[in-house]
């Protein structure tokens, strides 16, 4: 069930009403309602996915309990590894099986042997990477005794399948979200109103910014050879905004919906395009995922202790794995590698923490921001291209510079209209975000007047004809 679809618009009020009607009853009633709602929400795509998430929940719940019971180390380590294997195994099988088979075959044909691969047509269950990582974080925290495991299965099931953040994150840490399920939620209207404003803002970013950009991005990327270099560059830039609008829009809606039910989820994006260097970009982009990798991959590997080469190795591993996490395709791995290349010089010259506490931006830093944005856009080309070769050709076409015409953006009334809408919507988005950054706010806070203004923009500038899926659904 898409967030920007009519079924969700009907589903949400019903669950909201039921949820707060049950406020009088004991906590279990509310939690079980949430589980049912989440399973309905998740089953809307394909009910067969439900079995998968149920399996993963049961396994991790029992491991959590067992970890708590046994105190002797060797056993606990074995339990931990079973949980990791089960989760990563599920992920590997559903998401990357096809990828490994194809590459295995190409590798062999490379050596001349013909093998007929019997790749089963595995449909990728939506949001699998998100909730597997979430349950994994639970078992690891329990193993490290940072967290008491829950005895109540329903509570754990709601934690895993909490529908706002089930399908595309933010990947919640058990330490942060699980306790909220144990305590009774009281309705706070200001908190809920801030959730509503966040939903409106998320919808704006998704329906107006992302979907409008998609109109040109798909054109340019699908026929990238027949466009001038200026158009190709603009295509990449627009994809940058498309993916940001799409993904941060989704997270905002998720956080907003969670607030309606009294839960507070962590911030997933804090204005990444205003970062002044790549290190800061990775502290602001998809915070839940990057912190997950930092806590459960980077630090176990030794993190930033040890000598320089060890640090570089850890950084490379984290970037490659997070790239690979995004999808079963070489392009994502290369995308991760590029970001690693950009991140390393900062690490080596110890400038990766410079802007940690400098929140407000000064105009002098504008060139830094623009260069960071261009570097990130360069990486996005690989992220969006279908195959690595397509991305490389794309970049080569850009460097040819033989024509700089941007005619596709105004060749007929319709494309001119879309260009105007895109420019206006991006300016509006950046204006609001700039205001929030300068005020050192964690998210864009809309006043009622602004909410109405944004809602009007959504109605008259949004793309409703063929509601495109959230990009992040394929990961």
């Amino acid at each position, binding site marked *: 069930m898409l967030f920007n679809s009519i079924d969700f618009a009907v589903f949400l009020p019903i669950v909201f009403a039921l949820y707060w009607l049950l406020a009088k009853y004991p906590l279990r009633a509310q939690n079980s309602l949430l589980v049912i709602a989440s399973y309905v929400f998740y089953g809307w795509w394909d009910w067969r996915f439900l079995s998968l998430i149920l399996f993963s929940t049961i396994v991790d719940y029992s491991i959590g309990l067992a970890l708590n019971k046994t105190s002797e180390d060797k056993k606990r380590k074995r339990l931990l590894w079973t949980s990791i294997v089960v989760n990563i195994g599920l992920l590997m099988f559903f998401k990357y099986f096809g990828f490994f088979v194809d590459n295995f075959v190409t590798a062999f044909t490379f050596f001349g042997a013909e093998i007929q691969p019997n790749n089963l047509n595995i449909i990728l269950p939506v949001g699998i990477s998100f909730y597997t990582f979430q349950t994994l974080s639970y078992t690891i925290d329990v193993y490290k005794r940072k967290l008491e495991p829950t005895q109540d299965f329903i509570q754990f099931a709601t934690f895993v399948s909490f529908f706002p953040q089930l399908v595309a994150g933010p990947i919640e840490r058990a330490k942060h979200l699980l306790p909220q399920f144990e305590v009774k939620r009281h309705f706070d*209207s200001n908190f809920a109103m801030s959730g*509503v404003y966040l939903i409106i803002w998320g919808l704006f970013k998704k329906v107006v910014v992302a979907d409008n950009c998609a109109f040109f991005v798909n054109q340019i990327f699908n026929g990238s050879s027949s466009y001038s270099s200026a158009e190709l560059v603009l295509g990449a830039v627009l994809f940058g905004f498309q993916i940001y609008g799409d993904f941060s829009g989704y997270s905002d809606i998720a956080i907003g919906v969670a607030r309606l039910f009294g839960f507070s989820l962590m911030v997933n994006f804090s204005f990444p395009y205003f970062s002044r260097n790549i290190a800061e970009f990775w502290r602001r982009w998809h915070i839940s995922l990057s912190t997950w990798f930092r806590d459960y991959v980077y630090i176990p590997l030794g993190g930033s202790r040890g000598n320089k080469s060890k640090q570089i190795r850890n950084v490379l591993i984290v970037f490659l794995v997070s790239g690979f996490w995004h999808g079963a395709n070489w392009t994502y791995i290369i995308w991760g590698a590029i970001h690693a290349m950009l991140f390393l010089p900062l690490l080596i010259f110890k400038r990766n923490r410079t802007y940690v506490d400098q929140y407000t931006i000064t105009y002098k830093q504008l060139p830094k921001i623009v260069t960071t944005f261009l570097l990130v856009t360069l990486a996005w080309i690989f992220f969006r291209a279908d195959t690595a070769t397509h991305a490389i050709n794309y970049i080569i076409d850009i460097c040819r510079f033989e024509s700089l015409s941007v005619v596709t953006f105004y060749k007929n009334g319709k494309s001119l*209209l879309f260009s105007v809408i895109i420019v206006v919507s991006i300016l509006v988005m950046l204006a609001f975000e700039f205001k929030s950054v300068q005020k050192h706010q964690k998210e864009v806070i809309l006043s*009622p007047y602004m909410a109405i203004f944004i809602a009007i923009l959504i*109605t*008259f500038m949004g793309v*409703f004809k063929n509601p495109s899926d959230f990009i992040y659904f394929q990961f």
Partner: protein
Amino acid sequence: MKLFLKKISALFIVFVALAMLMSFGSLYFLRHSSFYKSSFLVNQVPQDNFDYVILGASDGLTTLNTKVIDSVLSIEGLNLSMDDTSLSSHYLMLQHFLAEGKQTKYCILVSSASGFDTYTNTLNNNDYRFLMYTNRAYVTEYYKQFPDTRAKILYYSKWMPQLGVSYYNAELFYPSLMSLLKPEKRNHFDDKGNFTYPVLNKTNQEITEFKAVSVEFSNPYVARIMTLCNENNIELICYFPPHESKKAIIKSSEYHFINHSSTLTNTAYFYDEIHVNHVGRQLSSLNFAETFRTYKTND
């Protein structure tokens, strides 16, 4: 909780009211513009009586040039075709034409051979161009009959216009803003409703054989258009425009028809398989004028 509900309803009501106001405004300005054929007919066509009216999709729009036909036969014609539509929209356009109190002696129904037979009960892509006349019964009834969501959105726009105007914002909202400044601007058609495709550098070779396609006029809308024409004593003529590869074969039927599907035998006249280009249009208009003259004389 009560405060939250009050705030939410206040926000929602003001938003709905504002959106409704803006969309009614945009429909109002569209009604007073001539951007689309439906309001062009109301605002920029002073004459009330015509000798013939052309109803068709993109083929009707680009095959017959009423100016040529009018000069040859010294009669008065109007081209009301709209691209990307089907026979159901032509029926609606005829209703709209009559509702404006205008009269015509002949109605030229242009469609490809398959168009007369196949009928899919779905809304056409450009049927939204009648949305500014939702206050008229025949328009809402038209939208009501189709099951798909787009038709439902257009139907409910009678009371909540922002549904239609926001769904088709690129096609309705922005043209209305533009027609606020330039009400007389037309969307790609001249003051008689004609449009033509440019002459691309197509190959110049003879078309020798055509694939035969039989036509039984099984599309129910042909009969409905026929009854509507009879009620207003209009003479219905079905016209088969030139086609690059298909030839329409019509067994005897109760509809008058002019079958020019295979008259143009050179690819140089065609813009693409079913549309003629500027030169092709000139030729087919002259051909049509000749055959149409015989109809005119014997009644």
